[in-house]
């Protein structure tokens, strides 16, 4: 019998705690495949956020650290400055990165840290029960926007990637999704590109935002959640490469 597909070694062989249809599992696998394809397991250090992915070190078989809510870019700074030869990536949700950690990511970009950020945008706070995130879209119902997000009261969805892309400290910013197989393949390419830039010591931070389904707190089936990304979420968060200085 011929093996035509194998689990990539950096992804541990164990069940995850994620809900059915959650996007974190897909993102973990893509990151693991990229790490293995680039052969950087032995010099990669990952940062798990506070959020549903807090236990990411149970699934990714590289050296990992778990940090305070939103502080990953500051922790990454400490690590990368001490060990410029290591590949440092943070994995952060939208509450983690866009709300409580908005200052830390902004200033990691401001300092043009040579790190890679994987930004999982699921438009809610998953771990705490589906509250509004800065990325919650208008009219979206969450635990803390029971009548739907209304910009008169809660403001507008925060487009962090757009903000970071205009700053000189980013070298590459792309927004992808995991809502269909084509997008999953493209997301993997983007993650790989981001890591490769860091390996080349490209002068700046590389960030891949991934629109990721949360069927549980969107109160949808997994397939409806994928459709919701493509029909609703992309209107506030258009899929595109916002910046790639490696091309110029």
């Amino acid at each position, binding site marked *: 019998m011929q093996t035509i597909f194998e689990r990539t070694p950096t992804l541990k062989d164990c069940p995850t705690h994620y809900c059915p249809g959650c996007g974190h599992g897909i993102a973990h696998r893509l990151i693991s495949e990229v790490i293995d394809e680039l052969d950087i397991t032995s010099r990669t250090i990952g940062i798990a956020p506070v959020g549903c992915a807090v236990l990411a070190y149970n699934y990714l078989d590289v050296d990992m650290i778990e940090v305070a809510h939103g502080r990953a870019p500051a922790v990454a700074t400490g690590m990368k*400055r001490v060990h410029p030869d290591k590949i440092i990536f943070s994995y952060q949700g939208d509450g983690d990165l866009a709300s409580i950690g908005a200052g830390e990511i902004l200033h990691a970009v401001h300092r043009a840290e040579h790190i890679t950020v994987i930004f999982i945008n699921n438009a809610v706070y998953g771990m705490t029960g589906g509250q509004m995130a800065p990325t919650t879209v208008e009219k979206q119902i969450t635990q803390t926007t029971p009548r739907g997000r209304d910009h008169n009261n809660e403001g507008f969805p925060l487009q962090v990637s757009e903000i970071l892309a205009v700053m000189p400290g980013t070298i590459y910013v792309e927004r992808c999704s995991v809502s269909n197989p084509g997008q999953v393949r493209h997301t993997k390419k983007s993650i790989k590109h981001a890591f490769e830039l860091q390996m080349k010591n490209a002068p700046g931070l590389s960030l891949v935002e991934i629109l990721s389904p949360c069927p549980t707190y969107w109160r949808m089936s997994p397939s409806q959640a994928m459709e919701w990304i493509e029909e609703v979420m992309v209107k506030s968060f258009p899929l595109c490469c916002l910046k790639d200085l490696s091309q110029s």
Partner: protein
Amino acid sequence: MSEKILMCGNEAMAEAAIRAGMDAYFGYPITPQNEVTAYMARRMPEEGRVFVQSESEIAAINMVFGASAVGARTMTSSSSPGISLMQEGISYLAGARLPAVVVNIMRGGPGLGNIAPSQSDYFQATRGGGHGDYRTIVLAPASVQELVEMMYLAFDLADLYRVTVVILGDGFLGQMMEPVDLDKRPAPRDLPVKDWALTGADGRKQNIVRSLWLQDGVLEEINLELQATYRQIEANEVLCEHYGTEDADFVLVSYGIMSRIVRSAVRKARCEGIKAGWIRPITLWPFPYEQINAVADEPRIFLTVEMSYGQMLDDVKLAVAGKCPVLFYGRAGGAVPTVEEVLGQIKKLAVPVA
């Protein structure tokens, strides 16, 4: 032969940290410790080491967290309001068992307070200002020379026990110039290998640095391990000095810069025939409970003197355990008890009852 040079506390401490092998410094400006950050900005790159001016104290302590996790000797410094912001990070350092050194050059509080010297952060430093059952070693230098020697000790203790070591100084100590011998250092400790550090899983199993333990019973075990470490520190690392306690009727207890004022007041009291003595805790945690308790075996009056409204006082009362009266004198908010004031307090106690 090493010679003495004149340096301000902040710069001397910064140079000592560099000589103690600190690999990375992270800090955010705040008076009265700005000389540290400026000194590090100049000297660390000269040594090929890491200096980053962070965007906040929250970021600074998290940079320390990252640098420590990858095995570096690392520190940050700040003053009271900045140290308040660092408490989250210090709790995480404790939970993740990462060594770090944090210097607090205390200023007046609460709130923005002022930039005058103060000792009002004793509770925060010794009780652990962040959440959770944790301790930080707290060293309280009383001179620029001691500040220097304590930097070496702080890095060693942090690495030995995998804890945060706080150097609790004040604006006087940071700003004043005294002659120092930078090469005078305590005997180096035997330090364990940092096999837990995140250096890339190269030919070994994955290392994980974490503070979350959800499984039933695991967090209790982790806490018991921490407690065991703390008991070890209490058994081995208490430092204090005393004078005249053998025959003293009045025992003054004070720490840091305040202890120098108290020393002068006690000397004057002795000249006037009053049997006064002093005890000076050098480590505020672990606190010299036993040493103070032993002095309280004879009937005496204890007087705690602080640049606060009575914080270490609680520990002195715990130490004395009701065996003798414990009184207090203190001023804060930038006010400093003078030698005359302290002497006046002693004399008040020494008045024979008619």
